[in-house]
């Protein structure tokens, strides 16, 4: 019995390690590639591990035309998206978490139905609409569509955040003389803050990663993914390596901070159905 137990443990951890390596090794490789000197990348046979590290490739990438400005653009767009998304979505999340009202199920169904809209279907017509509204090729325009993409998630996430704040606390505050607004600001908001921060990070990742809409809705004011995508055909391999690595860094950092909320966010979105 105990040797069978031991073997099942060994088997379990072998599978776990193999799967972990499958996820991690490509990340390590792109990291190595973007710190390999440029000439070494073209070497044949190329050593598996670079014999010398250098920041030269990464520097080349960061100094390449359009990279710095598009990175700043990406950050601006993400900030705007976070602001819009939480301002619009959080009240809806609060409403679903706290009230039972006619149309609540219809609203939730509508939120889930947005998942059926492919990005080309939204982005291509928005080119026409944005030109009319004067926000084509602007960071504001890109933030608008990123907000549209993040909003359904934000509503679902904030719903589960507000559900987890006990209703009793809010009601006690109101019996003790707080208005609904006061109770929300003094009691609910502080308790919901860590969850809202995670929702903001999640929104950041959605915006930072989005490429199709950002590419077709801009000409000069590119975001970083749009800049990299449109220059792929003319860029040397080391530019692509460094670019790939650079784009994954914030994602990995944010995933680390959000790890506690992962299941709540993605799991909740479907479990509600």
């Amino acid at each position, binding site marked *: 019995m105990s040797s069978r137990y031991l073997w099942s443990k060994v088997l379990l951890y072998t599978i776990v390690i193999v799967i972990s390596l499958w996820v991690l090794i490509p990340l390590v490789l792109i990291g190595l590639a973007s710190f390999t000197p440029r000439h070494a990348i073209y070497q044949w046979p*190329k050593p598996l591990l670079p014999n010398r590290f250098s920041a030269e490739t990464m520097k080349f990438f960061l100094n390449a035309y359009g990279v710095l400005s598009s990175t700043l653009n990406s950050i601006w767009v993400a900030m705007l998206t976070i602001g819009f998304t939480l301002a619009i979505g959080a009240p809806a999340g609060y409403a679903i978490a706290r009230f039972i009202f006619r149309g609540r199920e219809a609203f939730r169904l509508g939120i889930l139905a947005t998942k059926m809209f492919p990005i080309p279907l939204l982005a291509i017509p928005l080119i026409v609409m944005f030109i009319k509204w004067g926000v084509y090729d602007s960071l504001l325009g890109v933030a608008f569509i990123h907000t549209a993409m993040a909003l359904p998630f934000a509503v679902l996430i904030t719903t589960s955040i507000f559900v987890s704040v006990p209703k009793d606390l809010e009601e006690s505050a109101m019996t003790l003389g707080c208005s609904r607004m006061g109770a929300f600001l003094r009691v609910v908001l502080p308790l919901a803050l860590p969850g809202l921060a995670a929702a903001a990070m999640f929104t950041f990742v959605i915006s930072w990663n989005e490429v199709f809409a950002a590419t077709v809705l801009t000409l000069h004011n590119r975001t970083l993914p749009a800049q990299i995508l449109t220059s792929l055909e003319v860029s040397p391999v080391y530019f692509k390596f460094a670019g790939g690595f650079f784009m*994954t860094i914030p994602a990995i950092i944010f995933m680390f901070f959000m790890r506690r909320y992962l299941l709540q966010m993605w799991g909740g979105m479907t479990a509600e*159905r």
Partner: protein
Amino acid sequence: MGFLRRLLRTDTLLPYWLLLPTVVYLIIFFVLPLFQAFSLSFKTDDGQLTLKYFERMVYDVGFMDALKNTFLLAIILVPLQLITALVIALLINTNFRGSRLFLYICAIPLGISDLASGLVWFSIFSEHGYLNSLLYKLGILSQPFHFLSYVHLPWTFGAILAAEHWRATAIVLVVLVAGLQMISKDYLEAAEVMGANKLQRLWYVVLPLLKPSLQAALIIRTIFAFEVFAVVIALAGNLVPVLASQSYWWYALYRNLHIAAAYGVLLMTLSVLVTWGYLRFLRTREEALR
């Protein structure tokens, strides 16, 4: 003003006020573009109804390949990812020491964009990539092999599969892990008391109860698989056309909004059909969950 204040104060109306901004925003950015997309793809610039854009889309050289590639990718990837994710989720659900860390590691690709993951796998499959170095070290190759080129299209397709499998299994995984956590331990204990072994418990208790999550994961993953875009561009440029990349090229190269929008309409139709199909043919009993 007084009327407005009264409206704002009433608790019965409050939820509707709170939902209003979201509803308005979703109408502007989902419903309006939907109508605009239909009008772009079915109407000429002077307002005549027409099918000529769809005809041009269908008879264009890239169309059949794009349709075939998109379907082939989805048909291979979705079951593969479902199985991978199910194995990982069931492992995590045994709550072994280190399972939290394992879940976090497996979820990392969730934060990585399709473009970035395409480039990550480009560093492996490119002519100057790691796979070539490894095969040289193992003595299999003496010259670099061009995995990503028009003479080795099956390899290029395989590289796209590898990148998508790596990147997008995580979303299926978190949906399934969340689903598994909602299954009450009572059912499992009852089954154990009645003499069901591990495999029987998995087959007759866990999987049926997991069906709603499986269905949700399938719907989401299939819809996203149809929209595959930047991974393909990063690894194959336009060697391997897919529906979303065709939409992109029609706009980026030819500035033809009509046909770009027609591809959008086609993708939407596929998404709706797939969702309907899964809901219709994978009926779940909601009460099983609660």
